[in-house]
């Protein structure tokens, strides 16, 4: 199974959510599994969080997406909008 790891941008907000969606879907069209590295993400707004939630819940099998490296700051931001259950790679 081909895997691709992509580093999420420092800021995932309304300013770049559309571009990020296109980039990630493009990677997903070429690979079976997309790993999103969130370790460099310093800022996220609800629009960015919605995009992560979309990749968590709405990608059609057999394609899969996983997440890792979520910073404490981003974790707190996601918890505020009820997305604290975003599963992370162990």
């Amino acid at each position, binding site marked *: 199974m081909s895997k691709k790891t992509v580093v999420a941008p420092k800021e995932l907000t*309304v300013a770049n*959510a*559309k571009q*990020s*969606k296109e980039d990630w*879907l493009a990677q997903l069209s070429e690979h079976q599994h997309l790993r999103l590295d969130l370790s460099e993400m310093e800022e996220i*707004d*609800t*629009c960015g969080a*919605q*995009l992560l*939630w*979309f990749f968590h*819940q*709405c*990608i*059609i099998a057999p394609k899969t997406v996983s997440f890792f490296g979520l910073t404490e700051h981003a974790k707190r*931001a996601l918890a*505020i*909008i*009820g*997305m604290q259950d975003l599963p992370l790679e162990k």
Partner: protein
Amino acid sequence: MDLLNVFLEEAREHLNALEESLLVLEQSPSDASEINTAFRAMHTIKGSAGMVGLDHVSYFTHHVETLFDQVRKGIIRLDHASISLLLDAKDHVESLIFKESSNEMMAISEQLIHRLQDIAPTEHAVTPEAEIPPSQLDEGEGYWRITIAPDENAFVDGFDCMPVLRELQSLGDSALTVGWREQPQQESFDPLKCNLVFLLLLSADVSKDSIHDAFMFVQDDWQIDIDRLSFNESDKLGDILQDIGAIDKAKIEAIQNSKPKLGELLSESGLVSEKTVDQALQQQAFIRKEKEKTTPSQPTIKVPSNKLDRLMDLVSELVIVHSAISQVSLVNDIEALDTASEELGRLTAELRDTTFSVRMLPIGSTFGRFRRLVRDLSRELGKQVQLETYGADTELDKVVLERLGDPLVHILRNSLDHGIEMADVRQAAGKSSQGTIKLEATYESGSVKITVSDDGGGLHADKILAKAIERGVVSAEDNLSVHEIQNLIFEPGFSTAAKVSDVSGRGVGMDVVKTSIEALQGQVTIDSVQGKGTAIAITLPMTLAIIEGLLVRIGIEYYVIPLNTVQECIEEQTTESMLHQSTRVINCRGDYITCINLRQLFHVKQDMPKLQQTIICRAQEQQFGLSVDEIVGQRQTVIKNLSPLYRHTTGLLGATILGDGNVALILDINDLYDSCQLSDSYENMPAETPPC
């Protein structure tokens, strides 16, 4: 207990609650729940003080209560200055109640009343007690179900949901779920359109208007439904789904006639979407949790702590008697005795656990004291510091908890004074101007671990080493690792503070901490990174009365090693050199470990067996071994104090009585480790020591 003692005990609890509330209110001045708690505390102390004849306390607290009453009614708003005044007033009430009254104290009362009246004039004096309707104290208290569907253009219009949700969550306890307004399709999903729906369940003492305030800037565009859930709200899933209009009663009853879970059935039947069932389940969990919290608590009785100590002693004796009976049962092989012994064992274990649980107190009960300490000291030092606490529910034996307070105060004072830098220094180092101290309690391998960490400047190994050499603690030739250098701060009389302050720096801090923790059979470790911060971890047994131990034999004597220090056991062939060495070094999978020959240490005369057992223990983050003749097995060990004659013997913690009536000595692993550090004989280890 007489009425006065009951009052004194309750007053202490109310004053602690008041202090906790004031510290929360300093951060969230409009927190209605905390304002009510503070008001109730003052109100109760005022009334009770009058009943036991402490009229001056009653007189003074009346003025404090007046201020809280006006805060409650929204006439005045709390700020940093008024919180400081109220904390001073709380301290003064404590002095009035617990210290001998004097003219000076009366004068302080008048000064404080004068300052209180500046903030809360007496024309707004509190409603007399008899006229306060009980329900008024809880006015606005309730559960709310808030459904929020932001406008789909919210993001591009510059409205983020986070500030709104954050404000709502700050109103009280809450549970939030997020869902899709419409399930997005992979290709057509537009990330700039807000497609989220939030369901927030809130328990807060607020009005509907206060909740609406959170939506001030978006209420024209967003769909917002705020429903009050009644106190007696049903926690049955079917009722919740009916209540939110997802399905009618008849359909629910029809489907309930079969046995599987209602939620699954409704979801599978297509009558209600899975998403709706999930939301209802979330609400069900929230209501059940809140009901649990608001269920009238079980009646409690106050018992003097010495009665609990006596109960614990009796349980300890019972454990020993059971041990003796099971020994008799083993020897005699009588079926009826075996059965009775087993049953006695079961009941004894249950009684022991129940008695333990009665003595256990949550560590959070001491956190309030530390919050106040950090607040006051940070102001005194001119630093910006916040204290974060975690694991308040972690429980410790009351004796351990009582003795833990002073060491923690030492550590926190050190963090504040030496750890956290001044705001300008922090900013220059690229840190936020406000420093953070974290106080965290967790369960770890049958022990409780308490960590105090800060994001300050960390320890300066060079300074510590220079000071240690200057004081002759170590020599310049000693090749110490950074970790070993950091541990020098636990040496007696050691301090690197540039100047002695009232807060710390007298060199009587960290060695006292270490001694106090080790007296509790605990261990203290330090981990510091220069420029990043310091973490000091204390590991403590949950109780001091009974421990799990490893029973070992040397000659004809028995010893107990606390099981929480044991890492592994190794069998070795006895060699001639072992007979004469008090310590030696063994090679354990590449690690050279100092090993104490207990036979030599305790002057045991009998011959050594052909095989020696070495138990690898851990103390002060280091491994070391203890050589014994035989490992008998794991035992529950009741700790008995040694007589004064033996109390200062190296390496002994106490004694216990075995099932056959013999006495076994309990080893003090920290003390043994210190003694083997002092001994230099291991430096002459034989090169041919075989690897294990």
